[in-house]
């Protein structure tokens, strides 16, 4: 550095400039130290994120080791949850996690995408569309525990007659076999729909807004109707981002804890009926972790590990889909 600046000065002299006319300031050691120090500090902070993720995995895994050794793969298929005899299996919770989130997705996807279309098309005035968009976004801001409170005291009593009707009409199928008596899988699915709807709507809305206007103009130009354009041009163009958003919502639904815990009934025994109390991994953790000791803690950590792997798979799949499915237009 110093030789470079010296030669620069010489070059200046050769070019006919007097040496005193300009000066090249050398950076002070303190300044250099600060500059490099800051770089390494931020690098360490960034590295902390990766470390943190690894730390979470290791902590949960080491907590679960005892249970993994004791129960092995049987843990996934056994529905015994017996603290007295120290026999644990998470099938009920895994089944509940998957069924509740998939059912919620089944309802929330048409609702969310339909809403997103409604507020990206020019069917109603812009101000009204903005208002709907804002309200859906604010719904995402309501804490889960408040939604749970609302579900216990308002939503569940309100939909109970409907559930009873479904039991009366469809009670012969195993899925509606039990009499609805408050908390259960069905109200949990409803509250999950409320919770993931904003995610799906927001992502679908952004994806639809990013479809180039030329595609729409082309579709209208060849004489299609509005919904013809939506179904055969605009939705296919936006599908990768929408599917990615749906997968993100699935991950969120599987990990959702408080509202589900408060309304699902936290049943320890397995039931295939949607009207009966059930359990998810997250709600089982929320419910039992505080009072557990010994191998039960380890079994719960094992369940947490499974939940982490489930959400991890879904989230990575979401990123992969967004990258692979995106149409080139």
């Amino acid at each position, binding site marked *: 550095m110093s030789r470079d600046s010296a030669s620069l000065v010489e070059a200046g002299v050769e070019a006919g400039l007097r040496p005193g006319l300009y000066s090249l300031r050398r950076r002070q050691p303190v300044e250099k130290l600060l500059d490099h120090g800051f770089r390494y500090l931020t*690098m360490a902070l960034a*590295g902390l*994120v990766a470390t*943190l993720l690894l730390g*979470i995995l290791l902590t949960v895994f080491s907590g679960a080791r005892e249970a993994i050794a004791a129960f092995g793969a049987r843990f996934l298929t056994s529905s015994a949850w017996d603290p007295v005899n120290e026999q644990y299996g998470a099938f009920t919770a895994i089944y509940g996690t998957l069924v509740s989130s998939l059912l919620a997705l089944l309802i929330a996807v048409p609702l969310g995408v339909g809403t997103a279309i409604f507020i990206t098309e020019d069917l109603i005035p812009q101000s009204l569309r903005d208002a*709907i968009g804002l309200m*859906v976004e604010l719904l995402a801001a309501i804490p889960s525990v408040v939604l749970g409170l609302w579900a216990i005291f*308002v939503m569940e009593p309100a939909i109970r007659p409907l559930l009873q009707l479904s039991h009366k009409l469809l009670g012969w199928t195993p899925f509606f076999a039990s009499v609805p008596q408050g908390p259960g899988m069905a109200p949990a699915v409803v509250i999950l729909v409320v919770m993931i709807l904003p995610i799906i709507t927001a992502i679908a809305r952004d994806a639809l807004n990013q479809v180039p206007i030329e595609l729409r103009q082309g579709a209208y130009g060849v004489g299609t109707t509005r919904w013809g354009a939506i179904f055969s041009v605009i939705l296919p163009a936006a599908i990768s981002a929408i599917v990615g958003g749906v997968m993100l919502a699935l991950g969120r639904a599987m990990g959702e804890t408080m509202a589900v815990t408060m309304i699902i009934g936290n049943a320890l025994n397995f039931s295939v009926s949607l009207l009966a109390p059930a359990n998810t991994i997250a709600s089982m953790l*929320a419910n039992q972790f505080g009072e557990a000791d010994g191998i039960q803690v380890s079994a719960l950590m094992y369940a947490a590990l499974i939940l982490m792997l489930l959400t991890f798979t879904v989230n990575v799949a979401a990123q992969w889909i967004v990258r692979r499915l995106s149409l080139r237009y």
Partner: protein
Amino acid sequence: MTYQTSGMPSNRPAAAGQSGRFDRGSLFFDPGLGRNRFNRLCTTISGLFATTAVLPLVLVLLYVLIQGGRLITPSLFTQLPPAPGMEGGGIGNAMLGTLLVTLIGSLLAIPIGVGGGIYLSEYDRQGWFSQVVRFSNDVLAGVPSIVSGVFVYGLIVSTRIFFGQSYSAMAGGIALAVLMLPTVIKTTDEGLKLVPQELRWGAFGVGASRFVTIMRVVLPAAFTPIATGVVLAIARAAGETAPLIFTALFSPFWPEGIFNPIASMSVLIYNFAIMPYAPQNQLAWAASFVLVMMILAANLLARWISRFTRS
């Protein structure tokens, strides 16, 4: 024969009748056509879906306002919660606790998150290290909030790392920081990337070092998006319950320092909602009212900040 591209609606049947050969291809809008019926059906359905999507927010807000709003009294903010089944009392300790735990979480997550975001955007945009960090950050954002609680329980609560204390406000704050961190990093990274490259060149051109450029030029230019993300992260953390129920636990007393269990509004709502006593349920509604108002206010604040984005 001439096509009438713009005619009175009353002319339409006559025109359509005259041109027998063009019955199917008439240029006039025919509401009876299959595709037009389908169009109207779809519009109606999407309108209904949008109404359904808005309904839960309206209903939740309505109930929180009605059930919680009528319980707002000065003593709610200054008193401790009553013993189970007893009337009266307040949620003063829980409000203080929520503020304290969220503050601890913010103090941890914001410096780490902004610093990490600066590295990703300013020092190493495309390198393998940044790719690993970005991927980890995305995965971390998808980790369920309850798992963050389990992590802090395993790392801090069960090991009694802080002066032999198990459950503590500090542990709760750390669990919240784990949840806030991905949002803060992501918004910092993206916010800094939006700063035009010319600003950095300008700063380097007048002889500023990297550090000075970042601190005096780049960060101030990206203040708006970063502040928006940070406020949203804080608002989300303030309403979180799952990471707190077995880290910060709950306490019926006033906060006793950051190394003791502490009450928080979200855990209070959870505990009191599932109690079979009406007075406790009432307090849960009142706490919901205060919490929802705080969080909505923070969200509106974030929107207001984001309006200052330079175009």
